[in-house]
């Protein structure tokens, strides 16, 4: 109670100090930020939708229901449906291991989790080509056994899983770190099994953070271009995801088609943003967040 009050008082004091900057400076700062945001964020977003709808809604609908577009949409959903649950499990497992146990190589694991974020997506894609491509390490063996990974759906899934690995773990680690082990120990001491403790104690404690991580993971899984572009082979109707399809259509001067598919991706981004805001609000409400 006292702490909140102190924070509020401090906030009030700071806000008084900020207002003492004078109305001109304030207007300039806010105006500048607004103009910058409008120019770099809002304008492109509006452009995507207006280009997509330039020739009316029917042209838009026709563009996103062509067999190739439809196949790209289905493939993107499939990729997300496989890689997001996988990374949800991996992310929870990694965060659990890092926050609840102490073991040798913990900091190495922490660094490895961040690897996909620090490596250029193109390089991430290339890694898989070097491993599984025709001239790659396992390429000849895979070819002899009739398994196709590169320029096929499995390669796209591998690349996407790699790229989106950090999102869930990175959201959960600070949340679980802050919560410590006492709740789990209490569960175990009351006779709950490890699984019961995870299900009834840990999961409810991390649910908002987990959902947030999954949301970011999903947005990236659907939107990833670089890594997927390297491993996909751009085969229409087969290995084209939505971002790749946008590029192809654009290169063929099919602007309405390109922007129509792009607007779907932009729509996904908007939905993610709204959901993220709602989650952050709930996070704060339950005091479980770090925002």
């Amino acid at each position, binding site marked *: 109670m006292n702490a909140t009050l102190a924070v509020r008082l401090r906030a009030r004091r700071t806000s008084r100090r900020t207002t003492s900057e004078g109305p001109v400076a304030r207007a300039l700062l806010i105006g500048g930020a607004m103009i910058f945001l409008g120019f770099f964020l809002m304008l492109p977003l509006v452009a995507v939708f207006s280009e997509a709808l330039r020739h009316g809604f029917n042209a838009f609908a026709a563009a996103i229901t062509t067999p190739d577009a439809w196949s790209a949409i289905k493939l993107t959903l499939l990729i997300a449906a496989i890689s997001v649950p996988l990374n949800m499990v991996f992310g929870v497992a990694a965060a659990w291991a890092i926050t609840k146990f102490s073991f040798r190589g913990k900091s190495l694991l922490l660094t490895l989790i961040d690897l996909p974020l620090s490596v250029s997506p193109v390089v991430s894609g290339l890694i898989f080509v070097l491993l599984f491509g025709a001239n790659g390490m396992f390429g000849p063996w895979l070819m002899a056994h009739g398994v196709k990974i590169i320029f096929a759906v499995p390669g796209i899934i591998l690349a996407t899983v790699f790229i989106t690995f950090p999102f869930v773990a990175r959201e959960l680690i600070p949340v679980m770190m802050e919560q410590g082990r*006492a709740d789990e120990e*209490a569960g175990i*001491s009351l006779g709950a099994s490890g699984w019961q403790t995870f299900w*009834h*104690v840990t999961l409810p404690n991390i649910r908002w953070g987990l959902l947030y991580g999954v949301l970011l993971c999903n947005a990236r899984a659907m939107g990833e271009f670089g890594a997927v572009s390297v491993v996909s082979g751009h085969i229409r109707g087969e290995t084209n995801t939505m971002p790749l399809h946008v590029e192809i259509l654009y290169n063929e001067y099919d602007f309405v088609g390109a922007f129509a598919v792009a607007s779907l991706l932009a729509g996904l981004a908007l939905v993610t943003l709204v959901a993220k805001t709602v989650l952050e609000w709930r996070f704060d409400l339950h005091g479980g967040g770090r925002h």
Partner: protein
Amino acid sequence: MIRIENLQKRFGDFPALHDINLHIEPGEFIALLGPSGSGKTTLLRIIAGLEFQDSGQVFFQGEDVSERSVAERGVGFVFQHYALFKHMTVAQNVAFGLTVKRGRQRPPKAAIRDRAEELLRLVQLPGLGDRYPAQLSGGQRQRVALARALAIEPQLLLLDEPFGALDAKVRKDLRRWLVDLHRKMGLTSVFVTHDQDEALEMADRVVVMDHGMIEQVGTPEQVYMNPASPFVADFVGETNKLTMGGKQLHVRPHDIEIVADGGHPVRVETVFRRGGAWRVEGLIEGAEGAAGRLVEIDLDASRPAPTPGETILIAPRHARAF
């Protein structure tokens, strides 16, 4: 009830416990008392089975439980910050140990609900079952944590700094209440504290620990009146170190009297009233290299208080040398 033999525990290079031997009788209320880093919490957690020793054994009723998990030992553990499940209601928290029982062992729903309500009555929180932990005060949360631990009907109740997070008034009330509950339910209890008043007031026996070793085990009376080491004399109760006749003496403030002659000269610095006594703080003058050391003296408040600046002669009525 509990026997601990030759317990050793290290955390990396840090020796947390060194050669711990301890017997706890059924029905006893034991305090593990020591400064932070003394190993008291580690010992409690090893007794619980939340932490495991490097070597040595823990016996419950003659049975070696050293390798058993916390669940298999069937102990009730109350955590320092309660560790209540915040997404569950108070009743669900209390019932947790029953609802996670598997198969035939799990009581029917209605029985679980009744048991939770019964336990809430026991900890004097009847009717609060539908609240969430966040809606309770610190003292109430503490009692919910206790009810939750008691739900699994443990023989042994372990409490880690049970009153650490509470304010003084609530703490005082809860101490009495917890001792009563312990007696009424016929439990054997061990609690960790760094607060000597708490240990002396509540426990049947106090285990004083320092640097991973047991310094003394005894009743509050024994530990206070006959400290076994300089550390215990210093840590339990207030003590003055006086050098007399070449020997280091430990003297309690109330064991010092003012004498007419032959005593130590002390220059009075401050005098204030503390309960039924005058607390005199003074500096030793002159003799034997102890000059300038602070002494604290409790004098009967029925006699006139010395005035600051005055020099008095003191002598110990009762002292210990080690």
